[in-house]
């Protein structure tokens, strides 16, 4: 039993580049779809030139950023600036079950590959477009990245300490989880409907609208007049909700009490038994009223604790706690390793690299995850041109020489 082959036989012609779109088709590829990534040397995917690179492995095939988002896909090098390439691209999409892109509106249309044109050719196609702000409206042509989309959507302003500048989420978060995730939900639903009815459709994922959904409850409150500002790690309903320094350099532990009983257990576990009975902290309301003082007392009590020892002690008492995990912590984490979450891929240009599995699995089984490392640029051009497009060697040689298959 496995989900590795769920989309076996599904062909995806993938014009996505950079972050959010590539993660959509990555998940389809890991579950058996034949994802043909259309890219070119003429204008490479931005991620192919983005760090990190293993020292000495720099170049279009060496980016760890690109490799982390494109495993299990085939790379078809097609230079859309060559006049012959449009015809080749049309033939490719004519035989596709799914066509994907995350360009700004108008790019695919300029190539004659917009939804209306592709549907003419391939009426049952499921077509995913992920423009930053949607394909209509006064800002339809605006450009951005995850970081700027998070700012636009309210996430940056609300993340940080109240008396400091906003800090946001630390990464281009909308690109990595919500935008690909939301797009996948709609795409998977449309693929299923196509299987049942033979009818395709266009899906549009505005990355701005996707991100605004992440502040949905807060937006509702604001529309009702509430003033919602950044509060660091504090949240309504929990107290404490904080991160405390532990022994060692830059070592921290996140600790939360969701109710009064958890608070009393927390106080007892860190040797502050008397505080558990202190009326200043007895209820959520009282703890909220004295939160600075509460956190100060806990910080003093926790500062000489080792973070994992503290975590285990608190969890044994039913108190939510976990060390704040850095990259080396995560790669070494005994829980993730016991679950078989990390896989090792052997990339032809990079060498061995660790890749995460999908974040879900059949109960009792190992996770579905990457099998083949990301392709070298154009690694499957000849194979796709021959087996998918039916071109012979002479035709392929000519198109390569003319830098159409490039």
């Amino acid at each position, binding site marked *: *039993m496995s989900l590795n082959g769920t989309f076996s036989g599904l062909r995806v012609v993938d014009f996505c580049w950079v972050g959010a779109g590539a993660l959509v088709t990555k998940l389809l590829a890991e579950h058996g779809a034949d994802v043909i990534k259309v890219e070119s040397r003429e204008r490479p995917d931005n991620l192919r030139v983005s760090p990190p690179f293993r020292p000495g492995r720099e170049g279009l095939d060496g980016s760890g950023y690109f490799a982390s988002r494109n495993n299990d896909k085939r790379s078809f090098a097609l230079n859309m600036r060559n006049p012959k390439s449009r015809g080749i691209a049309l033939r490719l999409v004519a035989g596709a079950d799914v066509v994907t892109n995350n360009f700004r509106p108008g790019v695919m249309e300029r190539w004659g590959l917009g939804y209306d044109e592709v549907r003419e050719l391939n009426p049952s196609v499921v077509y995913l477009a992920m423009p930053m702000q949607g394909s209509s409206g006064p800002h339809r042509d605006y450009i951005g990245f995850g970081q700027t989309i998070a700012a636009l959507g309210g996430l940056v302003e609300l993340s940080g300490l109240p008396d400091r500048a906003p800090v946001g989420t630390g990464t281009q978060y909308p690109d990595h989880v919500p935008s690909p995730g939301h797009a996948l*939900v709609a795409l998977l639903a449309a693929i299923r409907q196509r299987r049942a009815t033979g009818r395709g459709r266009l899906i549009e994922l505005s990355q701005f609208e996707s991100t605004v959904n992440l502040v949905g409850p807060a937006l509702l409150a604001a529309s009702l007049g509430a003033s919602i500002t950044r509060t660091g790690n504090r949240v309504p309903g929990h107290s404490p909700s904080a991160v405390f320094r532990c022994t060692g350099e830059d070592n921290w532990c996140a600790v939360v009490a969701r109710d009064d009983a958890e608070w009393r257990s927390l106080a007892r576990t860190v040797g502050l038994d008397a505080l558990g009975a202190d009326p200043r902290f007895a209820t959520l309301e009282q703890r909220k009223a004295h939160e600075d003082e509460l956190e100060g007392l806990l910080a003093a009590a926790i500062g000489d604790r080792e973070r994992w020892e503290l975590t285990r002690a608190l969890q044994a008492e039913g108190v939510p706690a976990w060390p704040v995990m850095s990259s080396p912590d995560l790669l070494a984490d005994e829980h993730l390793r016991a679950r078989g979450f990390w896989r090792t891929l052997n990339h032809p240009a990079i060498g061995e690299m660790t890749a995460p599995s999908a974040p879900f699995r059949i109960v009792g089984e190992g996770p579905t995850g990457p099998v083949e490392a990301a392709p070298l640029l154009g690694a499957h051009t000849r194979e796709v041109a021959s087996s998918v497009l039916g071109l012979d060697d002479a035709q392929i040689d000519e198109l390569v020489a003319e830098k159409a298959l490039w």
Partner: protein
Amino acid sequence: MSALPPLDPLDADAPLRGVEVLELAGEYSGYAGKLLSDLGAAVTRVSVTSETIVEPARPLDGASIDPAPLFLHRGKRDLLLNLELEHDRSELDRLVGVSDIVLQSAGADASSGQIGADEIRALNASAIHVILTPFGLDGPAAGYVSADLVRQAAGGLLWLGGYPDTEPIAAFGDQSTLATGIFGAVAALIALAERDRSGEAHAVEVSSQEVLTQALETSLAEYEFTGRVQRRIGDVPREAGSGVFACKDGYVSMVAGRLGTAEAWKRLRTWLVEEQIPEAESLWDEGWDELAFRRNPEAVARFTSIFEDFASRHGKQELYLEAQRRSIALAPVNSLDDVLGDVQLAARDSIVEVRDPATDASGRVPGAPFRISPLGPEPDAIALSDAAETAATPPR
């Protein structure tokens, strides 16, 4: 391509029309159920009265309204069952029996005693059972309890957030809960596709910790390739041209010079020179075209000083419009009020009005995060167009 209207879950052609979903109320299942409901699934949300239901923490200080029903549960059928009553227990069993998908929050955080995996399997062997958990169902920490802050710590997102001189600071708004809900819906639909293909219906688990490891960008590869550990850098830009910068009425976020935006970095410097900002000319000196140079803390500080000198004279909306006109990826750091007033969202009807029946108060929430076109033509109506025939000819 004509503009797509907001999604209508009641559309007879909605992609998940006919799919029955049972959402057992819990911490993560609400957003998963919402997304499936947005796409036309019939979602019945069952709360059980004989136990405590753990719902997400609510960022609602000062609000008079519970956001869950209006944001998460719009369009769902809501049931309150007491499983100690035989009638109610039978109703839950019946609902399991007719469901294609059962969404359940589990792990040590979940309210216990709802209904077990074996019972669901016995009642309906063809149901997809999606179990949403903080840390998965096995492994040494499977029994650990959590809250959003703890999950962000466990998944690594918290490590990257905040200021270098303080503790790490979490992303706002219960992100781990929403993200787990998103991938709960993804897992449900992949399992449904597998059932369509093979006839096998699986129980599938989702780990919130594993969901969040997807958000770590390049930090894992950077450590593995170079030994460098990425850390929180706070409100200091990571490099000249990219980061959050102060302006006259707040902040703007900008990406110019990285991720293939070398042209935008040139356009940005041209803009500063045109505005006659002191020392802007020096940004054209040797070295500034190199990313490694722009990542030097001295270069970051120098650029920030020059840019913020300029930005301090302009509001964030003004900078947004002009930067975009110049094809520079700059956006305002919006407050929630700014989001509610955004002209793009307004033009696309992206924010919808909702009314609370209990208080009659009306508020606004985001519409569905995706849009879909009407269905394509029936397969029988498909005929090869001239374009298709042309495209079928190998290019020469």
